[in-house]
């Protein structure tokens, strides 16, 4: 990593967001460099089409620029928050509906070792491991709900499982991911 990259990497998200609130475009560029891959990857996973994923990517960062106050650094970290609102926005696109949740109402509690880049990469491996380790029916229910935006009723209709079973699997799947970081 060059000295310049080290310097940019040392600017924390809170400082960058303050600069964005003051109208600093270059700070927005740094945030884009930092989080565009996560935002794009999540949108692409949900939408399955690069053009639509790129549109969501633009949309999310424009929203951050227009309404930086929508993110409150006292209530969570920027990366996970972006990941969640990206997933929600992409699902809205799939469902062809207007955004249902005000982004400033989305509060994301982050596992402590998800904040830095290196930690996040390690966490990604852990999450993928946890998904692979889940009973297939649980993983499928969780991924259908999360990445396809299907309701438990729709999942039950597709899989033939009881509604209650699907609900239990979705929650149990999320809790299993939490346990990866809090064994």
């Amino acid at each position, binding site marked *: 990593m060059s000295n310049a990259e080290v310097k940019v990497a040392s600017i924390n998200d809170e400082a960058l967001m303050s600069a964005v609130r003051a109208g600093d475009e270059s700070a927005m560029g740094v945030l884009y460099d930092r989080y565009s891959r996560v935002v794009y990857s999540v949108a692409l996973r949900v939408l399955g089409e690069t053009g639509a994923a790129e549109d969501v990517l633009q949309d999310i960062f424009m929203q951050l620029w227009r*309404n930086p106050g929508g993110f409150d650094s006292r209530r969570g970290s920027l990366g996970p928050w972006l990941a969640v609102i990206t997933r929600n926005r992409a699902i809205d696109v799939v469902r062809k509906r207007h955004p249902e949740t005000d982004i400033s109402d989305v509060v*994301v509690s982050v596992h402590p070792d998800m904040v830095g880049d290196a930690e996040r990469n390690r966490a990604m491996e852990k999450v993928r491991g946890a998904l692979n380790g889940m009973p297939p029916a649980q993983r499928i229910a969780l991924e259908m709900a999360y990445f396809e935006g299907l309701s438990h009723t729709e999942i039950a209709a597709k899989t033939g499982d009881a509604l209650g079973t699907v609900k239990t699997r979705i929650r149990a799947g999320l809790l299993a991911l939490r346990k990866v970081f809090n064994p």
Partner: protein
Amino acid sequence: MAVHEQYAEDLALYAMGSLTGDARAAVEKHLRECADCREELELLRGDMATLAYSAAGSVPPRRSRQRLMDAIQREPRRKEAPSRRTWWAAVPWFAAVAMTVLAVLQMSQNSGLQRQIADLRDRSDTQQVQLQRAQEVVATLTATDAMRVTLVAAKTPPQPQGKAIYVRDRGSLIFIASNFGPLPADKAYELWLIPSKGNPIPAGVFKPDARGSATVVNPPLPPGVEAKAFAITVEPEAGSAAPTSQVIMLGAGE
């Protein structure tokens, strides 16, 4: 933390945004009343973020960044919107008003000071970002270990080249030289700003390194001078106040 079990599964669906109708309304009503379940909702969204990261790995097209920056530049400049507050959050404040005017005055002063501190912090953070960006640019331009590459037409031997970037109103100048030949120890190259009117103005003395590269960053120049051209001569090592030899390189503004 005690999550109410009757809401536990619906909370997960609510976090996913897939709860509708009466079930959604019931969860929202309960969330307004239950701090534990609000905390659990935040944790569930943390779990969702974790799950989102399992999808990471794709790289957006290169054009996306420029598309975003272009779109930002087209946006009207805006001021920060005030943070949203719900009406009930103001109730204690009104109670304080009723109790004592002094408390209000103190609160008002406090609030003003906090705003000033927040403004100063925002300004300081912005300046920190701008300063670091500027330092990065200068560090790259002046790094002794920087790779300097001059692209020329194929099969053309490398020619001495100089690139001057000049901002008149700031009197700011960056000059980058490449493929310059070596000079005797007591000589140096001198850059000159040729103004529209008047004599050439010294704009920095430099000696190229072993690879023929050199950089001049912000030599002392009077601000506001209209530059007709830039020129280079060979001068004594300490530089000259006026050119003492023939111009060996010359370039006019584009």
